[in-house]
């Protein structure tokens, strides 16, 4: 106990010894180093219509909300967990829209959980998210395991970003930058490399359905990336079945995707208002702090006037914080039921998808066993 208190005293004294920069403080939601803001970004489109082999399907996994495990640290970090959970579903959907707008990719889907067989999979973690700044860590890797992106992206909102225009977003440049980086990376890959990604994806998927039948088609190289060692015949009936099952699976995923779109549509007005009000409060507080710091002292130290001035400054600052809390509560009251509803629907879809999977797998294995004369795999 004493050592804890001693640590507390030292921490307080350290705090007294200097004051961190305001930017540092405002972006203290994550321990990850802050990146430079992306600035103004134009969405790059592919030159010409992309070839079929380049139209990789993208799986966008809902983001890690980046909520610290220690609940005691949430208020200090200015993180509102319910809002973060909603953002974890909202932000990937927004990124999906930008990727779709480029018409540079195949199907772009928001996935409730990672899918190792996706042709190109994007995962993200929210580092900082408030009305003034958005910072997310994005990792993109293709089915072979090749890493396309693995970095943090940051964007800052400006006054003219609010109120948010219909269909707009204060951090749209961040999403455009991610999209541009993905496109840049893809354009560096050869036709053969892109075609191999699709092969690996399909064969991995096939192996997940029938490990015995598709074992050895894809194995890791020295660097751990998956490479195709051999290909089944183009008219292989098993492969045709796998493709059909995969398409069937996409039907389910597209249903889940619709739920995320519903969340996006219903959450957008509230979320934009939350960010706008949050930013205004933060700016007001910052300016207020500056005004108070520069204000002349009233009365002699120890008099009522002097003490009242000190107390009122503290009191106003607390009221600002509590306004933000109430704003968050207003957001939760409005959006939390939608998040729960959507998650419930997605969960039910996953449940039925899983049973469908199992059924398909059993059928596939039976067919395979009948065709090959091998004993069916348990």
């Amino acid at each position, binding site marked *: *106990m*004493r050592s*804890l*208190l*001693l640590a*507390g*005293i030292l*921490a*307080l*004294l350290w*705090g*007294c010894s*200097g*004051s*961190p920069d*305001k930017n540092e*403080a*405002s972006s*203290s939601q994550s321990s990850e180093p802050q990146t430079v803001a992306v600035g103004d970004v134009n969405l790059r489109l592919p030159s010409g219509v992309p070839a079929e082999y380049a139209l990789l399907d993208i799986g966008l996994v809902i983001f890690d909300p980046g909520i610290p495990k*220690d*609940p*005691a640290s949430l*208020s*200090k970090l*200015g993180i509102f967990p319910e809002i973060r959970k909603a953002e974890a579903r909202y932000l990937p959907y927004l990124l999906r829209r930008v990727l779709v707008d480029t018409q540079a990719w195949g199907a772009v889907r928001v996935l409730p959980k990672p899918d190792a067989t996706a042709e190109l999979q994007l995962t993200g973690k929210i580092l900082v998210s408030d009305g003034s700044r958005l910072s997310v860590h994005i990792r993109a890797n293709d089915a072979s395991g090749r890493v396309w992106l693995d970095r943090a992206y940051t964007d800052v909102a400006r006054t003219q970003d609010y109120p948010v225009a219909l269909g707009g977003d204060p951090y749209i440049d961040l999403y455009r930058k991610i999209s541009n980086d993905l496109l840049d990376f893809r354009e560096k890959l050869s036709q053969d490399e892109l075609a191999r990604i699709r092969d690996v994806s399909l064969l991995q998927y096939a192996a997940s359905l029938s490990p015995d039948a598709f074992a050895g088609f894809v194995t890791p190289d020295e660097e751990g990336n998956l490479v195709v060692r051999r290909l089944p015949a183009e008219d292989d009936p098993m492969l045709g079945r796998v493709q059909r099952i995969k398409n069937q699976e996409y039907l389910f995923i597209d249903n889940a995707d619709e739920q995320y779109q519903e969340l996006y549509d219903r959450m957008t*007005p*509230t979320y934009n*208002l*939350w960010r706008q*009000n949050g930013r205004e409060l933060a700016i007001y507080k910052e300016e207020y*702090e500056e005004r*108070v*710091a*520069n204000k002349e002292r009233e009365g*002699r*130290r*120890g*008099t*009522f*006037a*002097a*003490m*009242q001035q*000190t*107390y009122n*400054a*503290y*009191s106003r*600052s*607390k*009221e600002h*914080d*509590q306004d933000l809390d*109430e*704003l968050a*509560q*207003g*957001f939760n*009251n*409005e959006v939390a039921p939608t998040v729960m509803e959507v998650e419930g629907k997605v969960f039910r879809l996953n449940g039925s998808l899983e049973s469908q999977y199992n059924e398909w797998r059993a059928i596939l294995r039976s067919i395979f066993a009948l065709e090959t004369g091998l004993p069916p795999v348990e």
Partner: protein
Amino acid sequence: MMITPKKHPLSLFCLLACIFLSSLSHGQKLQNRNGKTVDFSGHWEMDYADSDNIQARLDTMVRELQRRAARQSNGNMNRSNSSMSMGSGSGYNSGPSVIGLAQMADMITQSQLLEVTQSDHEIKVKREQTFALSCEFYGDYFQTVETPFGNESCGWDSHQMLFRILLPEGVSIQHRFTLGPSGERLNVATTVVSDRVSYPFTLNRVYNRFEPGKSGISCEVTLTRGKVCTTEGSK
């Protein structure tokens, strides 16, 4: 938000912080002894009859300061002692400083109504016409928060909930919440300390539990639609 003060004179502030924190390590337990928290939740209204009279408290304080001054001057007959004088000047224990302390305590404890919400790890005391006191308690330590305008700490001291605020310029405030045995009475002892007065000023405010009138309407705040109210039956 962990932001340390920028432009305030901090030396005395930090000294007070040290004294305050080191005092914790000596006498006080930081958690409810039974490992259980006392439930303060509910609506409370001030009972003026049982609360302290500010004038009486001020008189007591002045008498105490005068007694101390007299004792000290008797012990130091040959030494002039302007610091303990109860004059109108600007020195230690001056009249304006002592009265200022009482005025501060009165101003801080004006809220007639309190609304306390409490969970396993958090308590929030909404006070009429001023900011809410809130505390998160995880484990047996005081939660401390630094803001540019003052440092806060809070936690359990046995069955009492303590909120402490260390303000710049040598002022500190403590609210000690104690629930009566029946659970129907709440005592909030507010102590204001100034480095210009040698004696703290404490004001007890007593609150009685009450049930707010039922209007049949239940409201919640939303961002896009403002306050949304529904009749309770339809919920």
